[in-house]
């Protein structure tokens, strides 16, 4: 259930950002979550609602931008889609595939009032 603690880190980041500009409410939060970042978007949505309770982000909408996993295969030198970290290359079956995209776990933007 690490999404709960991730959600709490997100709330901390957005509250600090909102406070720095003296904003009173956060209405939308955009997260960029990579397919290889081991975050389940559905679990994150559930936890976000709980983690924002009693904070400036209470009731805020959560928008998750999902980023597909991508890697560079050291064996066949191709950029390939990657479903899980340390998986073999889907093109040639070789190892290793260096992840080049989809590991993001980032707060991208927020809408404040």
């Amino acid at each position, binding site marked *: 259930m690490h999404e709960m603690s991730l959600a709490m880190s997100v709330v901390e980041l957005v509250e600090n950002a909102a406070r720095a500009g003296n904003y009173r409410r956060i209405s939308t939060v955009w997260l960029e979550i990579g397919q290889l970042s081991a975050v389940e978007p559905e679990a994150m949505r559930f936890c976000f609602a709980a983690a924002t309770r*009693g904070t400036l982000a209470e009731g805020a909408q959560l928008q998750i931008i999902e980023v597909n996993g991508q890697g560079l295969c050291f064996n066949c030198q191709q950029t390939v889609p990657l479903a899980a970290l340390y998986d073999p290359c889907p093109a040639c079956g070789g190892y290793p595939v260096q992840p080049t995209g989809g590991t993001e776990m980032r707060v991208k933007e927020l809408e404040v009032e």
Partner: protein
Amino acid sequence: MCTTCGCGVGEARVEGKDLPEAESSLGSGSTRSLRQSQEVGRSPSEMRYSALDPAGRQAPQPASGPRPAHAHRHAADGSGHWHAPAQVRQHEHGHDHMHGEAPQHADEHAIHPAGGNAAAATSRSRLLQIEEDILSANDAFAAANRQRCVERGIFALNLVSSPGSGKTTLLCRTIEALRETLAIAVIEGDQQTSRDAERIRATGVRAVQINTGKGCHLDAHMVGHAIDELSPPDDSLLLIENVGNLVCPAAFDLGEAHKVVILSVTEGDDKPLKYPGMFHAASLMLLNKIDLLPYVAFDVEQAVAFARRVNPALQVIPLSAATGEGFAAWLDWLGAGCRAQQTDKRETIAALRRRIGELEAQLSASARA
């Protein structure tokens, strides 16, 4: 709190002492923020009132407790920013455009008298781009620790493994082999007790115990305090023994030069595949307890192949902390790392001295002109 498994770190202690309350952990900030925001939430008009002094200028932030002033150093191209290490603490914020917006925002409030129509202010919404990594608070502390080590020629290693892989025995033997030729300091991480720090101190070197309480890993903030406490001498070796856990410590940079993962042959040889994150994050794998190989079904070649599948650049040294077999290669690796760190420090100082010389020459030339 740990962003990997969700455990708490609110009870972290360095040498039995609580970390300062306002910054007892990276995670406790969430609890603190929650409390503050509840206060703010109760009375928005009060918040606006306290946010402005009578002249409408922006006053210190409302209901947010003491906030240390913070210094910024902006890169020449204006991108990114750096916080003075002592002032990073809990304070985090977005990027420069937000600083720019704050005064304007204060003006918006200035046209609404305190206690006036709160709804008027809420009708203004705007977007803030923050692009901040969820682990950014830890990474800022880690960068400060790393800078400190680099400036002082301290070679810092973060030793990670499952519980019972023989980390402390390995440390004791390493210290006994090196203490005549090298200054060594140790940071010990465990959930509870100072038993490991006591074992290390018995070898005659300085050791600080961090108890993580409910936490499952060390974070860069705790380690920064432990470095304060230890104040390791210049050109020393700093060994940080992390909490025995193959999952969470992989995600937390402490500011070390390298992570060293210890895998003992009494564990499964497929561990690198089952816990790939840690083997991916490490630079060196010590394969410990090789004296027990005749008694266990552990395939060394297979274990190394699995580890290199997740991290092709991983170096491997098989050894036994009990018998000392294979230790020479490990001590050589440590010696080379320490020398490289010390050389970096000397070269940095020499470059700074050259620069001072150039500037002084320029200054005296312009004084003559």
